[in-house]
């Protein structure tokens, strides 16, 4: 795209930004990510153990839902992360589209499967929660329905990128799709909510039981942090693989320790 080239050049005049872009080049990022991954795994494990402990041993039994409510400690974090990852993905995609940085597109590509996984987990746990609470595996609850559509959006993004052979075109096309999706998500959520209230009246809310104890909130927050760290760790692992796949003809790749030996 002629436009983007001009955009980048204009910003390239600024020396500070040159450094910043240099830092974000795959060659510097690849080893940096390698060093960061174990730390994020450690954090994920730490938060996960703390969250599970709070979730199973500190949080009291719910008065209405019994022990079944303990699904909340993975259902809600998975839903949060699925939405958050889409935003982050769209952010990287937009950055890649605007500034023509290679790494941003790779980040967006590597985040998509993890986001889809979170959306799937949210649906799966939602179904398993719905069965004892509502007596049905699937209820057309506004949240579950929006989550399903979010899952479809992830699948569309992944399918589009994998159908395009040229990685640069795949990055850009994916970016446009992700941005269109980001604009649409609030509209979709709002319309599904409207549709839901018209058809079902007041539905039982999954997340806001009136007596939500403080400890439950803590459990959810800790688990959300664990999921967050997990998402970073696994997407960094994947982005390293993507960097190797795409930059195989760059000189720096051949000088890597793991390649040379």
């Amino acid at each position: 795209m002629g436009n983007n080239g001009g955009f980048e050049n204009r910003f390239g005049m600024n020396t500070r930004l040159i450094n910043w872009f240099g830092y974000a080049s795959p060659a510097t990022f690849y080893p940096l990510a390698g060093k960061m991954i174990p730390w994020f795994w450690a954090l994920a494990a730490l938060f996960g153990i703390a969250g599970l402990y709070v979730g199973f041993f500190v949080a009291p039994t719910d008065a209405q839902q019994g022990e079944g409510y303990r699904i909340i400690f993975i259902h809600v974090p998975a839903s949060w992360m699925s939405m958050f990852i889409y935003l982050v993905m769209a952010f990287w995609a937009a950055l890649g589209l605007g500034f023509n940085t290679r790494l941003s597109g790779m980040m967006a590509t590597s985040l998509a499967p993890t986001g889809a996984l979170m959306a799937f987990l949210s649906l799966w746990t939602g179904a398993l929660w719905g069965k004892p609470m509502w007596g049905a595996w699937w209820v057309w609850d506004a949240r579950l329905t929006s989550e399903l559509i979010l899952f479809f959006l992830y699948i569309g993004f992944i399918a589009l990128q994998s159908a395009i052979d040229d990685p640069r075109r795949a990055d850009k096309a994916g970016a446009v799709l992700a941005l269109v999706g980001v604009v649409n998500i609030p509209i979709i959520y709002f319309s599904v909510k409207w549709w839901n209230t018209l058809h079902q009246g007041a539905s039982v809310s999954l997340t806001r039981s009136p007596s939500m104890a403080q400890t439950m909130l803590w459990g959810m927050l800790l688990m959300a942090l664990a999921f967050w760290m997990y998402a970073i760790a696994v997407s960094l692992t994947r982005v390293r693989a993507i960097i190797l796949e795409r930059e195989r003809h760059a000189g720096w790749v051949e000088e890597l320790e793991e390649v040379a030996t």
Partner: protein
Amino acid sequence: MNWGSASEFFAMGGHALYVWGSYGACALLMVVEPILARKRRSQALTELKREIRANQDSQDETTP
């Protein structure tokens, strides 16, 4: 502490299927996904090494 015994813990007040079905699927996927990601990287590495070796071999042949 919420649980009197281990069996009570695993029974989850009669909701064992739902609770462990959720946590089990979550654990399974979160083990499988990193393994796949690592495998993708090691595959890329072997591919790279093979390419580099092939390049070196062809260079060796051409240089007298």
